[in-house]
């Protein structure tokens, strides 16, 4: 398992680096067409082959990584931030503010997330801002709920009561005493969340709903490629591999992050002492 996680970290690092360095690595313009060479299979000249317009698939996959990852990271960062602010504030203050937040969370989570994002993007039209907005609307609720639950526990702790007695303000208590305790929870949740957002973003782009058609994303590349499965399977093969590898390696990293931040969950140490026959099943499990 450990080797598999290292593999995950390595693959993710490699793809992130290629996405950041895309303009240096991809020597060809992803939007430059060579119609006479369309459907050319992979070769030393064009690593991933050429698509139906004769554009370089390798460059498209690299630039697609840039777009898909930028959007997904922004969505996760924004959702986490909104969830942290709203969730911790409502749990800490309680009262009508908390009731209101809980009702809003119930409403959003009653909706299947992908469908809501799809409906929002469909009515608002394709653009990066709309895509990020739609995915954040559906995304922040799970972070807020998680944070709210944890803060309800934390605010009863002695050190928080102590700080209150010493006259610290609500915002100081939240920032200094409560937020640091949420770090590991949010780190794990947002790592797994990233995989979900990447899949959702690509799914929307696949349906032609994410970004304007001229921007290459993994989803739109897969959508183009599926029309030429016979002539040129390479068009959808490579973006598909890239997407699946990223999601897979993020999941492996998520498991790693969880174990690293919650040593109690490490199966080999504490659990094994309690019951010698215990198993590792709980570690590979979404919490």
């Amino acid at each position, binding site marked *: 398992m450990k080797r598999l996680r290292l593999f995950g970290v390595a693959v993710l690092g490699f793809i992130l680096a290629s996405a950041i360095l895309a303009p240096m690595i991809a020597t060809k313009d992803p939007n430059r067409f060579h119609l006479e060479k369309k459907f050319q299979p992979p070769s030393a000249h064009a690593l991933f082959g050429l698509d139906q317009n004769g554009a370089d698939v390798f460059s498209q996959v690299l630039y697609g990584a840039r777009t898909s990852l930028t959007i997904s990271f922004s969505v996760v960062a924004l959702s986490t931030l909104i969830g942290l602010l709203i969730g911790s504030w409502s749990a800490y203050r309680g009262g009508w503010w908390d009731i209101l937040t809980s*009702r809003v969370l*119930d*409403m*959003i989570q*009653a*909706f*299947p*997330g*992908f*469908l*809501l994002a*799809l*409906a*929002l993007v*469909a*009515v*608002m*039209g394709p653009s990066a801002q709309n895509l990020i907005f739609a995915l954040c609307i559906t995304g922040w609720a799970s972070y807020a709920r998680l944070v709210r639950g944890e803060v309800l526990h934390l605010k009863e702790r002695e050190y928080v009561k102590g700080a209150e007695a010493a006259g610290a303000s609500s915002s100081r208590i939240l920032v200094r005493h409560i937020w640091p305790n949420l770090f590991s929870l949010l780190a794990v949740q947002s790592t797994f969340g990233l*995989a979900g957002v990447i*899949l959702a973003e*690509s*799914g929307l782009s*696949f*349906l032609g*709903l994410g970004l304007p058609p001229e921007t290459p994303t993994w*989803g739109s590349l*897969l*959508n183009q*490629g*599926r029309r030429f*499965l*016979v002539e040129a*399977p390479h068009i*959808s*093969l490579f*973006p*598909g591999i890239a*997407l*699946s*590898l990223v*999601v*897979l390696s993020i*999941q*492996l990293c998520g498991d790693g992050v969880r174990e690293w931040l919650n040593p109690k969950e490490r199966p080999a140490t504490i659990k094994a002492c309690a*019951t010698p*026959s215990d*198993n590792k*099943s*709980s570690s*590979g*499990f979404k919490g």
Partner: protein
Amino acid sequence: MITFLRRILTTIPALVGVVTIVFFLLPLVPGDPVDLMLGEQASSLDKAALKHDLGLDLKPLPRFAKFLSGLARFDLGTSFTTHRPVAAEIAERFPATAELATSAMALALLFGIPFGVMAALNKDRALDQAARLFTLLGTSLPSYWLGPMLVSIFALKLDLLPISERGGIEHLILPATTLSLGLMAILTQVTRASMLEVMKEDFVRTAKAKGASTAQVYFGHALANAAIPIITVSALQFGAVLTGTVIVETIFDWPGLGTLLFQGIQSRDYPLVQGCVLVVALIYVLVNLLAELLYAWANPKVRVG
């Protein structure tokens, strides 16, 4: 009984949420939805008629009342492209989606649970490793890549199965497999973990000691007790299967709600989009309620508490 009733009542806020969110979709359309649907050149008479039809000539509150009273009569408005009632369109497409979603669900249960049990029985051996790998791959391969790949292998290269459209069972195999893989992977993982948990219990040892056969012990005693998380996860994941149909139906040209929604989006047929989103979301809420009721029924501790 009271617990069941209370659970049914807790669905009401969710229903209100779904209806409210769907209602607010139309005002989110940038600019004037009527202009977008009819084009700038349409006559002002047509525009006014459509505006009235959509209720856009009303203030928000009366419009919401109109929307609700329509819902109460199963009136979801009229499709702008086909000029037929949206409810009729949806009723026509619904069986195809139901067929696809339930087959995918059945496939996932049929393969996921036995695979999970076998993995638990062979913990840390090759079969278990295979199950872990399957879980990882199943949750990482998106349907919009898996689907086209399956088509290119089984339909185009090997010519074993038809590519698309609805028909006999052979038409169902590829779309249902594509749709079920993710859930199958999750079920394998949950079954494995739940079985490992249960197999440590005393009653399993007792059953073994009194001489029950291996199959009786594992499939009778252990699996029955490991079932609660499996039931809960399957029912909760049914929502994912349901939304997954939008993509899978588009890939395989499956004439269900997903393709209807997609058509609606492409032709900016907002009443149709609203109707499809509403119906899928309502089914999702009801399935989640069913999951809770099943859970309460399977777990007496919850029923009493």
